[in-house]
C-alpha cells in the first residue's frame, strides 16, 4: 500500500461526491425535474417551433465554426508559446487568459464597439470585404471565438511541452521529412488534447450568453441564439418552456462530452497498444 499525503480514500471520495453532488448534480437534477413535468406533446411544440429550431441550428453551427477557428489558431499560439522564447511572452500569456477573466458582458460590449458598422474594425471589414460583422451570425462567431480562445491553447500547451524534442530529432536523423515528422510524431500525440480543447470550447460557447446578446442583434430567425431564447421564455414566466430548452442544450453538451471521452479512451488504447507492440 502506497502511503498517501492526504487522509483516507473514504474521506476524499466522500468529499468528492458531496462536492459534485451539491454543485453539479443537485441543480441539474432540479432542471431535469422541472423539464420532466412537460408532456411529450408540449416538448415537441416547444422544440419544433421554427424559431426554436432556427436558434438551435444557429447556435450549434456558429459554435462549431468558432471552435474550429480556435483549434487552428490555438495550435499556432500554443506552438509558439511552448517552443520559442520571445520578448513580452508573459504579456501574451496574460492576454490568452483574458477571456477567462473578463466578464463576458464586458467582452460583448467591447466587441460590439469594435465590430459594429460604425466601429473601427467593423467599418474596415465592411468596406474592404463587404461583410457586416456585428448583428450578423459572423458577429456571434467573433464573440464565441473570443470566449473559447483559452480552452484550446491551455489544453494543448502542457502536451506540447511533454513531447520529447528527441523524438522529432530521431525522426529527422532517420530521414523523415518535415511533413512526416508532423503527421507521424506530433499529430498523433496532439490529437487527443486538440479534441479535448475543441470540445471544451464548443461546450462552453454553446451556452454563451453575456457577450453574444450585445453583438448578435438578437433577431428571431436570424441571429437569435438558444441562451437568449431561454431568457425570453423566462421573461414571459414560461419556466416550463425555458426548462425544456435548457434540458435539450444540456443533453447536447453532455452527449458531446461523452462521445469525446469515449473517443479519448479508444484512441489512447489504440495508440498505446500500437506503440507497445
Amino acid at each position, binding site marked *: 500500500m502506497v502511503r498517501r499525503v492526504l487522509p483516507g480514500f473514504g474521506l476524499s471520495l466522500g468529499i468528492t461526491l458531496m462536492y459534485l453532488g451539491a454543485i453539479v448534480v443537485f441543480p441539474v437534477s432540479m432542471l431535469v425535474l422541472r423539464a420532466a413535468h412537460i408532456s411529450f406533446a408540449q416538448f415537441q411544440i416547444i422544440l419544433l417551433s421554427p*424559431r426554436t429550431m432556427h436558434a438551435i441550428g444557429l447556435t450549434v453551427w456558429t459554435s462549431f465554426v468558432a471552435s474550429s477557428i480556435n483549434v487552428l489558431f490555438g495550435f499556432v499560439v500554443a506552438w509558439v508559446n511552448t517552443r520559442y522564447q520571445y520578448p513580452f511572452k508573459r504579456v501574451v500569456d496574460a492576454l490568452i487568459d483574458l477571456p477567462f477573466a473578463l466578464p463576458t458582458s464586458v467582452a460583448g460590449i467591447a466587441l*460590439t464597439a469594435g465590430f*459594429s458598422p460604425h466601429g473601427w474594425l467593423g467599418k474596415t471589414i465592411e468596406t474592404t470585404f463587404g461583410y457586416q460583422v456585428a448583428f450578423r451570425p459572423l458577429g456571434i462567431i467573433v464573440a464565441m471565438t473570443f470566449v473559447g480562445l483559452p480552452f484550446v491553447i491551455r489544453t494543448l500547451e502542457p502536451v506540447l511541452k511533454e513531447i520529447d524534442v528527441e523524438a522529432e530529432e530521431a525522426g529527422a536523423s532517420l530521414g523523415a521529412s518535415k511533413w512526416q515528422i508532423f503527421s507521424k510524431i506530433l499529430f498523433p500525440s496532439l490529437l487527443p488534447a486538440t479534441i479535448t480543447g475543441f470540445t471544451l470550447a464548443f461546450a462552453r460557447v454553446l451556452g454563451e450568453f453575456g457577450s453574444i*446578446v*450585445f453583438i448578435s442583434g*438578437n433577431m428571431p*430567425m436570424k441571429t437569435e441564439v438558444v441562451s437568449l431564447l431561454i431568457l425570453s421564455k423566462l*421573461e*414571459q414566466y414560461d419556466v416550463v418552456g425555458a426548462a425544456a430548452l435548457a434540458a435539450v442544450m444540456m443533453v447536447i453538451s453532455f452527449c458531446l462530452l461523452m462521445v469525446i471521452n469515449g473517443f479519448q479512451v479508444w484512441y489512447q488504447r489504440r495508440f498505446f497498444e500500437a506503440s507497445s507492440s
Partner: protein
Amino acid sequence: MKRIVWLLLIMGVGLQGGLYAQATLLNVSYDPTREFYKELNPKFSAYWKEKTGISVTIQQSHGGSGKQARAVIDGLGADVVTLALSYDIDQIAKKANLLPENWQKQLPNNSSPFYSTIVFLVRKGNPKKIRDWSDLIKPGVEVITPSPKTGGGARYNVLAAWQSALDRTKSEAKANAYLKDLFKHVPVLDSGARGSTTTFTQRGIGDVLITWENEALLLTLEKEKGQFELVYPPQSIRADIPVAVVEKNAKTHGTSRVAKAYLTYLFLPDGQTIGAKYYYRPKDKRVFDTFKQQFPAVKMITVEEKFGGWDKANAKFFDDGALFDQIYTSR
C-alpha cells in the same frame, strides 16, 4: 479557534442588540431607477428618523423588471418592489402569494406614484423628419427598440405603435401589417431598454429610438446634451410605474409599517418632486404643475382601456406563437 468563533458570535448578537432601533428595507427595483432611489432613500431615512426615532437603511437591488420579479418569486427577500410593469408584480402575487392580488388597491392611484410615456428620440435636426408612428415605416428609416419578448417595458412600444396604426387605418389586419412592416425597419433587437439606448447613442445605429420619456429627457437634457432631439408622437401610451409592499416578506422581517411608510412617501410632495427631477411624471397635481414645462401634454392610451389589461395584451401580442412571433416566423 473555538473561542474565536464564540467571541464572534457573541459580538454579532451584541451588535444586533445595540442597534435595535434600526430597520433595514430591501427595495427590489428595475434598472433605470438607480439614481432616483439613491437620492430618495437618504431623504426618507431622515424623514422616518424624525418621525419615529428609528433609523432605516434601504438596500437596493436593480435589474430587468421581469428578472427582478422572478428573483422575488424564487425567494429574494424584498420588502417592497418598485417595478416597471404591474404585470410583473401581478406575477409575484399569483405565483408566490407574497402579496394580495388586489395590491393595486393598497396605495393611491392604483399603487403608481409616477407614470411615463413612450416617445421618439431622433438625431439632431431630425434629418428623417419623424413626427408620428407612420413615419417609422418610411423607406430608409431604421428604428431601434428592444425586444418585447425579453424587455417588459418594450411591450409598451409595440402596443402604442399597433394602436396608432389601428386608429389610423380602422382595421386590425392593417395594424398587424403595420407592425410587421415596422419590425422590418428594426436592425437590432437588444434585450433591454438600456441596451437599445447604447445601440442608438453610442454605436450610432438607427434614425429613431423608441424609448421611455424619462430616458429620453435624461439623454437630451443631461447625458448627451445637444446630440439628440425628443419627438412626442401625437398619440402615445401611458406607462404607470407601480410599487407594492411584499406583505409576507415584510411581516417576516417585521418591517410592514416602515415598508408602507416608504412607499407612501413616494406619493408625498417630497417624493413626487424627487421623481419629477428624474423625469418621471408625478401623479400629484401641484408637483406636476411646477414641472409643467418639462412634461408637455400628450394624448395617452392605456393598456387597460385599449387592450383589457396585460394578460389579454400578452396573449394577443407577446406569448409564444402570438402576433409578435408571427412577424418573424411567417414571411
